């Protein structure tokens, strides 16, 4: 059972989201909070796998909340679920390292798939935000220093590409004819060897530098 936490200050929306998730198989909402502060308090006594986080909230907003959650509970995967579709907000959240970004206008199917697949390190964004995400990446190209010059091994690159497509470690192992633990080792290596905070950062790095083509990421899952 996937344990989901919802943090949103709009109580009617929160209730509807809980009801929606309740209707998805294999998931349960174990925590509801109306702001970041309340979330952090409740996380002390509740174990959570996936966090659905709103941005605009009183007391402690999403920008402030996410780094705190990440520091204290690095195993929790965070998906932003907000009304905001502004590039500046997406960019900021992306740089902080959230695993997904969806607006409240997303279809339930898309959201369900994201929650289900987020357990794997991937790159999950609402299809409708595609243009904005491309722009964020474009704008960031200049922000990234060019001299890092990483040479990934061929295997590592394959793992990065397949991860970017949202494949589970199990499926990657199958596709590359290697064992599951080898895939996980590769993932850990990629992060440790080159100093990436998460697989997401490694994927972003590859996209900025044209190592991985964006079109190969945004394929139909």
């Amino acid at each position, binding site marked *: 059972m996937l344990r989901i936490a919802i943090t949103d200050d709009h109580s009617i929306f929160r209730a509807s989201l809980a009801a929606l998730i309740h209707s998805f198989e294999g998931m349960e909402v174990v925590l509801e909070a109306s702001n970041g502060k309340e979330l952090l308090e409740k996380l002390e006594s509740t174990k959570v796998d996936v966090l659905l986080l709103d941005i605009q909230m009183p007391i402690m907003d999403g920008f402030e909340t996410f780094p705190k959650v990440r520091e204290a509970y690095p195993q929790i995967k965070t998906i932003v679920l907000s009304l905001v579709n502004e590039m500046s907000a997406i960019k900021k959240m992306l740089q902080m390292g959230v695993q997904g970004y969806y607006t409240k206008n997303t279809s339930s199917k898309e959201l369900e798939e994201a929650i289900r697949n987020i357990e794997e390190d991937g790159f999950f964004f609402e299809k409708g935000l595609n243009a904005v995400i491309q*722009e964020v990446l474009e704008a960031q190209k200049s922000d990234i220093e060019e001299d890092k010059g990483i040479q990934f091994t061929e295997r590592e690159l394959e793992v990065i590409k397949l991860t970017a497509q949202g494949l589970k470690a199990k499926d990657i192992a199958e596709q590359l004819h290697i064992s599951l633990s080898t895939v996980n080792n590769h993932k850990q290596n990629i992060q440790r060897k080159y100093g990436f905070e998460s697989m997401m950062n490694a994927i972003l790095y590859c996209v900025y530098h044209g190592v991985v083509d964006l079109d190969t990421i945004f394929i139909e899952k």
Partner: protein
Amino acid sequence: MLGQGSLEAYFWIGTAVMLFVIFTSLFVFVFYYYRLNKVKSEFSDELLRVSLEKEQQERRRIASGLHDSTSGTLAAAKNYVEILYNKEQDEDNKKLFELVEKALSEIMKDIQSTSAYLMPPMLETLGFMAVVKDYIGKVQELHPDIKFQEDYELQELPMATASAYELYRVMQELINNIIKHSEASQVKISLYKQSKSFVLEVIDDGKTYDFNKEAKISQGMGLKNITSRLRKIKASLKQIPNRQGNKIQIHFKSN
């Protein structure tokens, strides 16, 4: 019988008194006229300040009502419809739920863009530069025939939200003018520091116009609004003569 001399004396005294009264009242009139004008202009400045402030407050109130409350409730309605859709077996009903969901989604989009226009949602949290970039990004998407270039020396601008809002509106108005009237194919927006103040610069390659002259004769409120807003935040507008197109600079202090 009065003598000739005393009659003349009365005449002169009378004249002097009359002249005194005339000049005094003239003086008083001019003095008060001048004072009145001064008070009037102070009053209109105050009126302007208050009305711009009210406008900002109202926009903020409406935008946050739409954005925080209405949109959230609509999203909730959409979620419930999706639950119904997922549970429904009857194909006709499924189709209907889908249509309801689509309609709700469209309303949400409309409300989003209206509220973002009224008050950019990230102004308070992420600041002036972030909302300018968001705005230019959106405009570029809507007008692919115009090439927007951005050149920012600073990534952030230390500025009170209320002033940042006015500056944002000015920038929006300048860009709107270019899109509506100039037939430009290229626009460049820059922000840089010049000694102790900042400069927001908008250059286009469209039809040349004289800002001050147009602001005086124009029927629309656009250019006049720019002047008012700049006066409120004590910023100044300079038009630099350009061989082709226009170059407008806004000079301002950060607070």
